[in-house]
């Protein structure tokens, strides 16, 4: 089994588990559920497994996404390793900004192609190193784990792609982060409106 196939099956299992309502289950049952989801990923349908179908449509997810998903599964299973809201917000800003820089330009909305920087990524690595140092200063442990996992995997050429961007971000992560930021902005606006309403004397 290639690394891409392995990641496809892992993606199916962790996404399925994270979508299930498990609040009332004990940690032991949650672990059983994770293992069941992993077994389901290998279920063949018309010659391909469900994990293969997942990677057909999501393509191979970035190492950061996979690591974050596995981290979330651990947090959900054990009830530990939860991420502070501030750190979650930092991650959403970091990857959301990356998505905004990368996707519109690469898909042809500008004449610049930032994806190119990932093939010989000296400047990109330098920027990511500085970003990592800032995240370390912010004590964002999850961010450090994600970035180190991505860079280590790129050095080992774990994925089919040799492009550093493909280890850092994928559209699923980009859409999630931008959606999260949008949700936060809507919530903050609602809170402001509510506060302003409360302040108005009757």
């Amino acid at each position: 089994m290639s690394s891409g196939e392995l990641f496809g099956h892992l993606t199916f299992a962790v996404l399925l588990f994270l979508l299930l309502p498990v609040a009332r289950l004990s940690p032991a049952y949650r672990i059983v559920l994770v293992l069941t989801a992993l077994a389901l990923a290998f279920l063949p349908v018309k010659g391909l497994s469900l994990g293969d179908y997942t990677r057909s449509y999501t393509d191979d997810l970035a190492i950061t996404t996979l690591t974050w998903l596995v981290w979330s599964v651990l947090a959900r299973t054990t009830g530990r390793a939860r991420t502070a809201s501030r750190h979650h917000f930092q991650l959403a800003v970091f990857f959301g900004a990356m998505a905004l820089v990368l996707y519109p330009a690469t898909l042809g909305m500008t004449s610049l192609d930032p994806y190119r920087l990932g093939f010989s990524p000296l400047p990109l690595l330098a920027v990511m190193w500085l970003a990592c140092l800032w995240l370390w200063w912010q004590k964002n442990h999850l961010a450090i784990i994600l970035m180190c996992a991505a860079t280590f995997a790129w050095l080992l050429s774990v994925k089919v792609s040799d492009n550093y961007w493909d280890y850092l971000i994928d559209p699923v992560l980009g859409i999630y982060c931008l959606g999260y930021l949008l949700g936060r902005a809507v919530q903050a606006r609602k809170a402001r409106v509510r506060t302003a309403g409360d302040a108005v004397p009757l």
Partner: protein
Amino acid sequence: MYPFIKQCIPVAQLALVCALFGYGLWHAKAPHVAPFAVTDAQETLPAEPPSFASYFASSTFHRHVHSSSISPLPDGGLIAAWFAGSREGASDVNIRAARFDPQTQSWGQEFNLISRETTEHLLQRNIRKLGNPVIALAPDNRLWLFYVSVSLGGWAGSAINTMYSDDNGDNWSEPRRLITSPFFNISTLVRNPPVFHQDGSIGLPVYHEFLGKFAEYLYLDSKGQIIDKFRISSGDHSLQPSIVPLDADSAVALLRNAGMSHGKVLASFTSDRGETWSDHVAVAPWNPNSAVAAVSEGDVDGGILVALNDLQDGRFRLALYHTDETLESWRSVAVMDESPSGEERVEMEPYMATLQASYMDVALEQRETPAHLEELENELRARACRHGLTCEFKYEYPTLIRAPNGFFHMVYSWNNTLIKHVVFNRAWVEGKS
């Protein structure tokens, strides 16, 4: 002990970050693009008579036959590849191929080079359809096949796969996906053959058609790993670059104009081995949003041969032009195929008569009995005449190469029913002036 370990964690994290990124920066290589591999130009015409011949490379009738590519083989033969199936984008479309035997001067029976099912099985991912193939022989005699596949949606959802053969196409490697886009790896297609650089690296002209329609130059090493990628054009109306190296550092890309209507062929130039390209400009011939093929004539004057539909609308005439490396002076060399009435659609009776005669000419030139005449008529009636009494001529998607012996080979879609192959030499081109 525990508080001490807790205090050490940030220091360990910092050390890990510095070590990994430091090693990454040391490990990352600066890109280097090798000079183009250009063959020595011929100062004078070789002493040979004008030569021209035509064949059909495909030998089986499918409802839709399209997008052919051709490559020389080390033994002096040729191999052509195209896609064929019940219709463009259908799940039964396969990549088909045939070989030209230099001894008998004839095409062998066509065969399946790779199918959608095989691609799906070997890549272990769902594949909905296959598209354009490109076949090319590298300087190290490795035969490369690049072909388009789609998992989701239309052609905008395309990805490129590659296979190679080290024994003239008898045995092939498993297909491998090229990762060319960060957005689900979609929207990259291939159409025209690659050019090669002096170190064996490969310059593959590709194009995108999702949010924009633009061309790129994919730079791969001799093993097929992507080294870099360069934009040839931007915007939403340039596709299917055909690259012609002019010398070790410079090349020209001719582009299909995918603008709204009445466009001209587009061109872009590089003088740094493909790293940067000039803004594309329109050149003289019309281009009705159809594929263009170009190849160096191999003379000291930097002559270029270009095959295209020199029409404002329709694809009912395929012509060969000669131009210089500035693309300022254009000369019509010959019309390869055209509708006899000068119109795209004609009535069924003259249409059938024209195509039967045209088919017989080639078949007789191939010294073959035109046994499939009735089958051909049925196929044409079903595909090209389906809207009633008039039928449509289509001569399109040319691929033009120059073989090591100096002969030019062109393959193109002959009414999307057969793949036609024409071969000619420089003396024939000069004789047409």
